[in-house]
């Protein structure tokens, strides 16, 4: 709480130096806990309302409401510890693995209530896949890595179908040409960037509707990063993507809309271009111009 007050003060000072008219109004909106910009869309793929997340007694996410449209790429940015990962992990209930984590509010995948206690998370996670920050291929062959999802979900009955899924997934992940001759060699023997693309291939092999990515490029060099970004752009034709990133350039390059989180609150959601050129909220502006974060 103190931190909030602190940053509000900073903003106050900034405002007095830079005579921007929108500042005061937005500051009030933030105090009221409202998200500025366009958090909601028509016919969303996923829609979240009044989401609160607690780790034990500590609240990590406050009143977040956000929609993710079909085949849209939404980037989530914000300073470290502001709750981006926490929020993202709510979307396919990965937070279930943390004992002390508690989620409130309404989270929907189309008509499906994600936090329905009766819901089986297995099919949910088949529909909402996830790519993690650190490439984490299984210690198995490249083929088995990609084939794992289809196998456990029983998507195929014949080996030839499985081969086909593996190939198309690897192709879509832009990895096929590099690995087609060594499908049976270990996935962990690939370079970091290749491993991450393998993880993406593994995720898309089960044809999810939504792909969640938590800083998928943070462990990669610029060239590997560029490849993944290209890949995200291509994937957005078929998938809905929510991506957390620390790189504003990356958010700018790959996303349609950008959501800015600050201390567990969703401050602003807008068209990416607008966020990076003319944000509505001064906290966003302070962040993207590098004044904190």
């Amino acid at each position: 709480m103190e931190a909030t007050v602190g940053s509000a003060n900073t903003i106050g000072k900034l405002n007095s130096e830079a005579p921007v008219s929108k500042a005061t109004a937005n500051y009030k909106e933030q105090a009221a806990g409202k998200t500025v910009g366009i958090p909601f869309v028509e016919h969303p793929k996923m829609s979240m309302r009044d989401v609160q997340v607690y780790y034990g007694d500590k609240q990590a996410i406050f009143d977040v409401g956000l929609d993710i449209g079909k085949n849209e790429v939404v980037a989530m940015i914000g300073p470290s510890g502001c709750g981006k990962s926490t929020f993202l992990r709510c979307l396919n209930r990965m937070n279930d693995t943390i004992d002390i984590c508690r989620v409130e509010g309404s989270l929907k995948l189309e008509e499906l209530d994600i936090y329905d206690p009766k819901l089986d998370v297995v099919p949910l996670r088949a529909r909402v896949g996830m790519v993690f920050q650190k490439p984490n291929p299984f210690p198995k062959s490249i083929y088995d890595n990609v084939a794992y999802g289809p196998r456990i979900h029983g998507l195929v009955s014949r080996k030839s179908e499985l081969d086909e899924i593996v190939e198309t997934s690897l192709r879509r992940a832009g990895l096929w040409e590099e690995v087609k001759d060594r499908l049976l060699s270990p996935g962990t023997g690939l370079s970091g960037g290749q491993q991450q693309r393998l993880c993406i291939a593994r995720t898309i092999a089960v044809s999810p509707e939504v792909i969640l990515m938590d800083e998928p490029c943070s462990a990669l060099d610029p060239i590997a990063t560029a490849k993944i970004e290209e890949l995200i752009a291509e994937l957005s034709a078929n998938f809905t993507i929510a991506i957390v990133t620390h790189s504003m350039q990356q958010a700018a390059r790959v996303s349609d809309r950008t959501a800015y989180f600050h201390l567990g609150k969703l401050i602003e959601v807008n068209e990416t271009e607008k966020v990076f050129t003319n944000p509505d909220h001064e906290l966003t502006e302070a962040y993207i111009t590098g004044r904190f974060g």
Partner: protein
Amino acid sequence: MSEKLSTIDLVNKNLARRYRREKRFRAYGIASIMFGLLCLVILFADIIGKGHSAFLQTYVRLNVELSAEALGISDINDPSQFVRANYDGVLRNALRERFPEVNKRREKRNLYGIISNGAGYQLRDLLEQNPQLINTRVDIWVLADDDYDTYYKSRSSDGSEAYTGRFSETQIGWIEALIADGVVEKRFNRTFFQAGDSREPEQAGIRGAMMGSLYTLIVTFVLSFPIGVAAAVYLEEYAHKNRFTDFIEVNINNLAAVPSIIFGLLGLAIFINFFSMPRSIPLVGGIVLTLMTLPTIIISSRAAIKAVPPSIREAALGIGASKMQVILHHVLPLAMPGMLTGAIIGMAQALGETAPLLLIGMVAFIVDVPGGITDPSTVLPVQIFLWSDSPERAFVERTSAAIMVLLGFLIVMNTLAVLLRRRLERRW
């Protein structure tokens, strides 16, 4: 020149000291390893020095007249006659023939003692397979008695400094005469690896105890590994952290420190007295040892499960694997090497465990080699204990030989474990 040294000079000045320290540090480590190795060498030298002679056994060649009459066999097609035939008699005749000067009753009895009283069975086996030898004269090698065996083994080549024990001059005369004849010989002691225990050292073997240990360990492994792994999986993957699981954890750790004899008492009270299971059987021994090894296996399995990188779990969960699939496909395979290590440590402990087995009767004198987990048997460490307690000098070398077999058992087990682990560990 200024008093103040530059940084790099300071660093260089300290460098020598740092190197010296580093060397000392390494020297401590090397010294510890040398000490350990030295102890091992002393132990091995002592055991092998004492025990190697048990792998050879003294045999005496006798010229035996196999007359049908003396044997009491009238019809060579009647097997029952072979069973009852007087083999000892013909062997004794052979001895009397060789030493015709012996005629007092007591002297004669002593004379017959040159050969093992198992020699008759040897002759029977020979005749049952070759009945045509009846009514011929054959030279056969028969087991010498343990006293003569000890004498012959301890005798240096010129005949001096032999261990005579309770031998009289006459007895020494006999054996020396036989040695002079060239009819005494040391041969590989097959009996030691083929027979069960016996009161007669020359007929006593380790096989009974070895099989007993093997069956007991199989029971222990088959019970403790799955139970231990399942308990560890539950505690690590399913149980929520609360007072109750803390309580369980503390108690598992306590259990690991309980003296093994208590488990023996428990086994006696529950399995033998309450469930009326038979005494002295590997099944009960294995169950008791399971109780003892479980904590070790649970603790090491939990550590192994904890060491599986969370990123692998997340990856599997993230594409929709169920909890059980995560455990079966990813956690267990990755944790298996560590769990096996724990299991092997537990098994090695179980192999060397004596106290609890004494209480459930696996200390009985058992001659037959057990053929299954419900046959009465003893185990290697108990056999060592029994033999070390026997007065016959020939059991001294057998005790050491049994220790060698036990160590060999351990080495085989550990080697298998290392190989298995290396196979499983083949991290990609």
